[in-house]
């Protein structure tokens, strides 16, 4: 049953999706982030992706931890359910929610502080558990909300606004996710909506944990010269390893790529992800090779972007747990409660 009431007359030229909704219907409350914050662009990309995927707003679940990035779920899809939880612990809320209702669409938004410091353990275990969700890490190399301390993703040599250079090696979440066996690993840039949107769409459709690391500059505390997470630095050093095109199930496949450089991966629900390799030695389904390639690119000081690794198979958390297909929240009491005679029977063993 769909409760979507058709929106009242809006700008007639506003595009509409299959549900008859416009992008407006996927917006949230006004952002209270700093003007120019990368996170707002990620929000915009999410709105577009969700709109284009024809998602019923109330079937979307938005989760986050604490941080500027974690505030953003209020800024998109106001009619979705949202949970702005505690710092670094969103993955466990998501796992529990998904365990209870596997039929909704889950998106988690986190920051580099949220996911790589206080939440590192939960982040890694969500990957291992393969919780079926899109996980977006809005990565700016700093703690925005607490005013600019280096985060664990700050690169060696990256300087703070005060000019202090970071000396500890960064935790690269893409590398980490790959090491831990994540089946969908991407990196993008908040400033590159064209690249980001199809990745997000594919991530939503992926059956399992879809990880997207988005370089999302903090204009207030980490957009200066010397920062390696600034707009300028990212633009200059980003290296698109693979171009992604997401083709939903029902759509015609329009894009075509030259032989050999393209690869189409069919998702769980029948949609297709087309990957055009910039470098034709790159194989986005060979984990080891991907790690090597990314390592190489990194040593050149460049930032690989694109849907870097994809494995559309394997079991998610429910697969491991062998849970019924019906969402657990929908099972009636009668199914769940064994009743008095079973109790009597059982207790025969207790005498």
């Amino acid at each position, binding site marked *: 049953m769909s*409760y*979507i*009431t058709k929106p009242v007359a809006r700008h007639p030229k506003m595009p509409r999706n299959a549900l008859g909704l416009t992008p407006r219907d996927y917006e949230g409350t006004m952002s209270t982030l700093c003007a120019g914050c990368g996170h707002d662009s990620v929000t915009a990309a999410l709105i577009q992706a969700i709109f284009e995927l024809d998602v*019923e*707003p*109330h*079937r979307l*679940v938005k*989760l986050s931890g604490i941080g500027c990035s974690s505030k953003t*779920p209020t800024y998109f899809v*106001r*009619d*979705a*359910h*949202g*949970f*702005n*939880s*505690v710092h670094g*612990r*969103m*993955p*466990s*809320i*998501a*796992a*529990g*929610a998904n*365990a*209870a*209702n596997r*039929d*909704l669409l889950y998106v988690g938004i986190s920051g580099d502080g949220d996911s790589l410091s206080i939440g590192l*353990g*939960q982040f890694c*275990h969500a990957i291992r*558990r393969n919780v079926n969700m899109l996980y977006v890490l809005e990565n700016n190399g700093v703690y925005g909300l607490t005013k600019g301390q280096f985060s664990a993703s700050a690169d060696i040599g990256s300087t703070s606004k005060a000019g202090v250079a970071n000396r500890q090696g960064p935790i690269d979440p893409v590398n980490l996710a790959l090491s831990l066996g994540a089946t969908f690993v991407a990196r993008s840039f908040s400033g590159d909506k064209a690249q980001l949107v199809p990745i997000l769409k594919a991530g939503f459709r992926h059956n399992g944990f879809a990880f997207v690391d988005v370089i999302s500059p903090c204009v207030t505390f980490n957009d200066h010269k010397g920062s390696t997470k600034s707009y300028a630095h990212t633009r200059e050093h980003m290296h698109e390893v693979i171009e992604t095109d997401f083709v939903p199930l029902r759509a015609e496949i329009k894009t075509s790529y030259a032989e050999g450089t393209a690869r189409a991966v069919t998702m769980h629900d029948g949609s297709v992800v087309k990957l055009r390799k910039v470098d034709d030695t790159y194989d986005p389904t060979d984990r080891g090779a991907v790690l090597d390639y990314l390592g190489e690119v990194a040593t050149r000081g460049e930032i690989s972007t694109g849907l870097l690794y994809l494995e559309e198979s394997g079991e998610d*958390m*429910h697969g491991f*747990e*062998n*849970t*019924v*297909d019906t969402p*657990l*929240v929908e*099972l009636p*009491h009668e*199914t*769940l*409660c*064994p*009743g*008095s005679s*079973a*109790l009597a029977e*059982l*207790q025969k063993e*207790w*005498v």
Partner: protein
Amino acid sequence: MDQPSASRINDFALKVATVNGTGSASANGLLLQALFRMGIPVSGKNVFPSNIQGLPTWYEIRVNKDGYTARSPEFQLIVAMNPESYARDIEEVVSGGWVIYDSSKELDDEFRRDDVTFIGLPLAQMCVEHFQGARARILMKNIMYVGALAALLEIDMDIVKGMLEEKFSHKKHLMDANYQAIDLGYNYVQEHYEHPLPIRLEKMDANRDKVMIHGNAAAALGCVYAGATVGAWYPITPSTSLMDGFTEYCKRFRVDPDTGKHNFCIIQAEDELAAAGMVIGASWMGARAFTPTSGPGISLMSEFIGLAYYAEVPSVFFDVQRTGPSTGMPTRTQQGDIMLCAYASHGDTKHIVLFPGDPRECFEFAVAAFDLTERFQTPVFVVSDLDIGMNDWVIPKLEWDDSYRPDRGKVLSAEQIEELERFYRYLDVDGDHIAARTLPGVHPKGSYFTRGSGHDKYGRYTEDSDAYMEVMDRLLEKVESAADHVPAPEVHRGEEASSIGIVSIGGCHWAVLEARDDLATRGIQVDYLRVRGFPFNQTVDDFLAEHDKVFVIEQNRDEQLRKLLLMETACSKETLYSVTYSGGQPLSKGHVLDGLAPYLEEALMGVGS
């Protein structure tokens, strides 16, 4: 204490001292079950080390025809199977008692006592003679002392053999070996010792509608019956068997017969923080979800508990208490988390807490916890302890009313939402401090944003003092209004009004009951109330008001229940006296009487130690 040499039928305690990891647990279980089947009131307490194999471990059995089965710290008989702990074990038997030991190796003179009777059985030797293989020999030694005890105490051999038959019906060779071992022990006693002993058993009919179970299994079953579908946990003694039980019962009752798929989801989390988050996530979605843990887990979950409180997400936490603080003594019992559970997390918080006193209440309160957490949309703690959770209890059979339907509280259906002009998550529409909630995915008009940060009654983010306080004040009233819905206290009064009262909690109950009867036989009448839920309901207040002196009896150092009563009832401070024991053993009558003695001096002359 009476001298045990006087004949004591169905009224004594014995202790088996062995080494953990040697299979004595199943022999002791067999023993207990046999006594249970003889219809005698009995209890079994396992005193085990925080280790897997090779250290001293004890199993204490008390039989008492009058039904007093609290721990007895005095033992008339000791089965001393562990030379490592001989000194301590033999010392512990009361004067006039009996020591059973393995005489395959001669007993050192240093262990001899003149005032007890030593009964040597060449167990190891007989094992070598009759059984093959190291493992079998170790195991059969245990069964052998059960046989010996059967002869010494007059345990019904038919019952014992019947149990072996049930157990090994599919493993003939094991049954034969067990039969043989039982007989060897039994016959050796018959041939070498006068028997039965003056302490012995006689069939009764006290267990007709009773079962034998531990609290964690009962709590687990309660979760199944309440319809819990998501269990998240991180292993920790003594709560682990709760999730083991849930797993077992789910496999039994909750596997879809057609597909083999699970109508439940049990997640072994990476730690307690994650387990708490999973419970909150699942409950937010509308599932009944819970996590079992112990003290260290509650500490780690503290931040999340505050989130659930403030964002009003149902969530059930089982705290099977062990001896704290820190790692403390993980295999000893205590009631040290009472205050923590009542107020866990930073800022102003207050929680609903249920205190079962035995496995039956573990079952019932588990169900109640889910109803309460959904009705009041706030965390609910079920606080038991190692004694209740892991020891063997004889309790009245569990009952289930098939007309039970979960109290989901104010969860709006799609239809109800549809009818609303607009939905506001934290609006107290009915004036009962409880705002309706919606579940994700049900209806677009039902969506709202959940957060642990400041919000107003509409659910909007706020940093405004009044809007913030309005919600917080409602939360306080909401949780306080649960006082009428938590399990009411159990009250025992004498025929005449007494000015002296006892208030106690949880598993202290049985020792208190016994002590109270003891006092009564000495002409001291005390009323007694056992707290079963927090916030305290009016009965507690009334009870305190009605008595001049109230002794608060509990198992922790810091008088936590007494403090809670002080803070959360109208009682005057001068009324409350404290009796505590925090050493990690289940409470015994002696603890109670000793504790009361200084206060009731005149009246109690000669009682206590």
